[in-house]
């Protein structure tokens, strides 16, 4: 953005008035930014600062917070429940990426085609985007109910392995959860890859075809490299999203059975709003934010932020 005309174009004679002019413009701009800053400051920045401060206190939510030094932070890394939650959360982050990325990529590239079948499929595939986590959690909870859900109707041989208590089995429930998360979010990432693929210049493929490249070669040499920025965006969203995943787990399993699906955000919720240890919960919240920021900064640096932005502009 170039410098603003008022000052730059002012003739020498007008020089005396130019600075006041410019100042009044500046104050208009500041004024325009103020409402957004105040709203965001009050409900996001201030709370974030408070969370960091609270993480060094003990607070039951009723009496005033008492200084606790590093106790919460020490507890964070020694408490077996929270350590277990960190481990579960890491598994969800990694497995979500590993599952969602290739499937979304495959479906997105396929749906970028404009054939009628693909258009119809796309209409159906994107329906889950409209569902709230609450709706999805309730649907799957009853669908997977061992007594009267869909699973129990698979008695016969080829499908009988599906007849299982998917949410009640401690060793399986985490994978069930990861599957449902994938069910919820693959449509969104498919949409990203579809949009990304449609922006790849046709001339690249044309040139490749003239050189006799096969479909597979075109995918590896053109499509995939061209989708690099989409992949960074999608990856950041999957990682940060998985770190803060709450609604679905809260309703689907409540963290159980036992502690089998007690992911970090849920651990924070239970420690805070059920055990009334808001200081400890704040330490967990701060940890979440720190990890999330490190990941996004890392990915953005790794990929070059300007590129991510030009993609957002649809360039």
């Amino acid at each position, binding site marked *: 953005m*170039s*410098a*603003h*005309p008022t000052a730059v174009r002012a003739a020498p004679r007008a020089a005396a008035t130019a600075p006041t002019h410019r100042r009044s*413009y*500046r104050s*208009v*701009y*500041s004024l*325009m*930014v103020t*409402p*957004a800053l105040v*709203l*965001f400051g009050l409900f*996001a920045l201030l709370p*974030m600062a*408070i*969370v960091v401060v*609270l993480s060094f206190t003990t607070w039951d939510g009723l009496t005033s917070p008492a200084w606790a030094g590093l106790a919460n932070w020490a507890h964070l890394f020694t408490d077996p429940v929270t350590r277990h939650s960190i481990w579960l959360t890491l598994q969800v982050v990694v497995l979500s990426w590993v599952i969602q990325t290739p499937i979304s990529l*495959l479906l997105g590239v*396929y749906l970028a*085609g404009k*054939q009628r079948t693909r258009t119809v499929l796309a*209409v*159906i*595939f*994107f*329906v889950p*985007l*409209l*569902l*709230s*986590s609450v*709706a999805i959690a*309730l*649907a799957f909870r*009853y*669908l997977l109910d061992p007594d009267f859900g*869909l699973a129990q*109707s698979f008695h016969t041989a080829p499908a009988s392995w599906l007849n299982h208590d998917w949410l009640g089995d401690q060793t399986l429930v985490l994978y069930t959860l990861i599957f449902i998360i994938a*069910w919820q979010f693959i449509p969104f990432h498919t*949409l*990203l890859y579809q949009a990304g693929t449609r922006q790849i210049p*046709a001339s690249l493929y044309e040139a490749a075809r003239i050189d006799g490249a096969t*479909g597979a070669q075109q995918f590896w040499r053109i499509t995939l490299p061209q989708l690099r920025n989409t992949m960074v*965006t999608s990856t950041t969203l999957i990682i*940060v999203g998985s*770190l*803060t995943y*709450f*609604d679905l787990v809260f*309703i689907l399993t409540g963290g159980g059975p036992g502690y089998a699906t007690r992911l970090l*955000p849920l651990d924070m919720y239970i420690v*805070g709003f059920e055990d009334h240890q808001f200081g400890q919960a704040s330490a967990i*919240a701060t940890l979440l*934010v720190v990890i999330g920021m490190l990941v*996004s900064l890392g990915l953005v640096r790794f990929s070059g932020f300007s590129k991510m932005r030009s993609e*957002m*502009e649809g360039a």
Partner: protein
Amino acid sequence: MNAMNARIRRANPLGALGALVWLVIVIIPLYWVVVTSLRSQGGFFTAGQLALPHPLTFGNYHLVLSNQFGTYLRNSVIVTAAAVLLVLAVAVMASHGIVRSGKHRITGTAFNVFLLGLAIPLQATIIPVYYIIARLHLYDTLLAVILPSAAFAIPVSVLILVSFLRDVPGELFEAMRVDGAGEWKMLWKLVLPLARPALVAVGIYDSLIVWNGFLFPLILTQSPGNAVLPLALFNYEGQYAINVPAILAAVVLSLLPLLALYAVARRQLLGGLTAGMGK
């Protein structure tokens, strides 16, 4: 155009296979939810799970609709509309200020704050937000959900709008300035009409997120009279206990408004979703 068609029309057997498998995975749960919501409670325990219910019953829908569903729907509409209008208003003002001021200290800082703000998950701030809402005497009101929901939608909205407004040619502003227009008039007469597609996209993106939001309503409201749809679904679950078909009827009903929107404006809806992908 020919080359384009050649590219887009080429076969992709692996993709076709994947799409077929995914079709089954997507459709079965959706179909099961709809079919089960049309079963009687007795039929639910006995009938084949995927068979069409016989007889078809709308009793569950009747039960849900007569159980304050209208109130929840109204609350959701109010919360979403108010939050989105609020975000659009403050975000378009801020974006205009940021773009027009160039490398100005205050607005530049503000932009960086919003960029950084993208990384703040609302889950992490919920404890102080609860405290602030209580101190403002807003606990258990719709405003308690509207304000934080709007606040958390600001960063993405500003980012999208700023990148859109940066492409508006400076001559347009210059011409208006020569005619004696101030910044507010430019905002109103030039930016708002020009930025309409971006505003629509941002509005759709924000609406979906606010409409489906659960944590703010869960923590910041309490009485059923102030429940929004996702929270109401959660409450129905406790209320109807094992009347699963009724709970699923509520799930279907909560989806209907968005499904109607999807039917009439699918392109805009999906476009709005990818507009927010810088998040």
